[in-house]
């Protein structure tokens, strides 16, 4: 097992790093109370997915997918297209999330999830301390 992991890591280090970053992002989303921090975690989780997809399109000794006479091996353009649009859509959704946070702050005067849940009337022991 240890042997397998040590060999697997060398050829797949991109995926391993993407998974570690995705775990950090996920922890930020579910483990933190501050809504702004949650959105930052969402961004990190998103970039981990980008990293994973782009890694799948890489070809050893390939070049960027722009046709030229002297090159024959190109990396895969399809994951790049998917991620390009995902980045721009990601910032649009981030803007939406921030707009909601600004409104929540104006209405409830807090961006802390615990305090928001308390305001909602869950204070009678229903809220466990997550």
């Amino acid at each position, binding site marked *: 097992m240890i042997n397998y992991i040590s060999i697997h890591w060398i*050829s*797949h*280090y991109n*995926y*391993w*790093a993407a*998974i*570690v*970053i*995705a*775990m*950090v992002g*996920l*922890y*930020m989303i*579910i*483990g*933190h*109370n*501050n809504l*702004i921090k949650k*959105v*930052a975690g969402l961004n*990190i989780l998103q*970039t981990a997915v980008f990293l994973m997809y782009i890694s799948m*399109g*890489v*070809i*050893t000794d*390939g070049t960027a*997918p*722009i*046709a030229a006479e002297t090159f024959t*091996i190109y*990396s*895969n*353009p*399809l994951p*790049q*297209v998917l*991620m*390009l*649009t995902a*980045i*721009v*859509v990601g*910032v*649009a959704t*981030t*803007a*939406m999330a*921030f*707009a*909601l*946070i*600004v409104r929540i*702050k104006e209405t409830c005067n807090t*961006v*802390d999830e615990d305090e928001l849940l308390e305001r909602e009337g869950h204070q009678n022991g229903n809220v466990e301390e*997550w």
Partner: protein
Amino acid sequence: MIDIIIDMVLLLFLTVMAFTILRLRDLLSMAMILGLYSLLMAGLFMVMDAPDVAFTEAAVGSGVATILMLVTLTLTRIRYEKKAAGLQWRPLIIVLLTGAALLYGIHDIPPVGDIEAPAQQHVADRYIAEARNETGVPNMVTAVLASYRGFDTLGEVVVIFTAGIGVMLLLGNGTRRYRG
């Protein structure tokens, strides 16, 4: 070889920065490091032969997203995360389980850079071979984005448009003047 070294160094930096963002309670510093993180990620995409994605990540991730986060911090007047977030074991267990599932998921996918991988076989080959002859555009990413998958991109544009409308609905579209 130099590619692999740059790759590994950047990935190490990115991982360290992700943990820094996780631990920072000062949200202004967090926004700044998040912008730097996006810039490093753009550099990594550049090394991985994806200039278009690198371009977008540099402009969007470290430009517009950082600006939006700074504006939000200004509007909400929040500088620090309230509670010192100790290690909470329930989220940690969920995260570790997810990580384990993902690791199990990658255990048999082909190594990075493998030209025989299934992801390089089906439609990608055709794009690379025919995109220039069929569309007259040397940049295959543009060709796939605008022509082969034009309908997808139409959807993305509509999503962005809708997000703009949503933000204007939530925050007012500026017809009322709040500031004197």
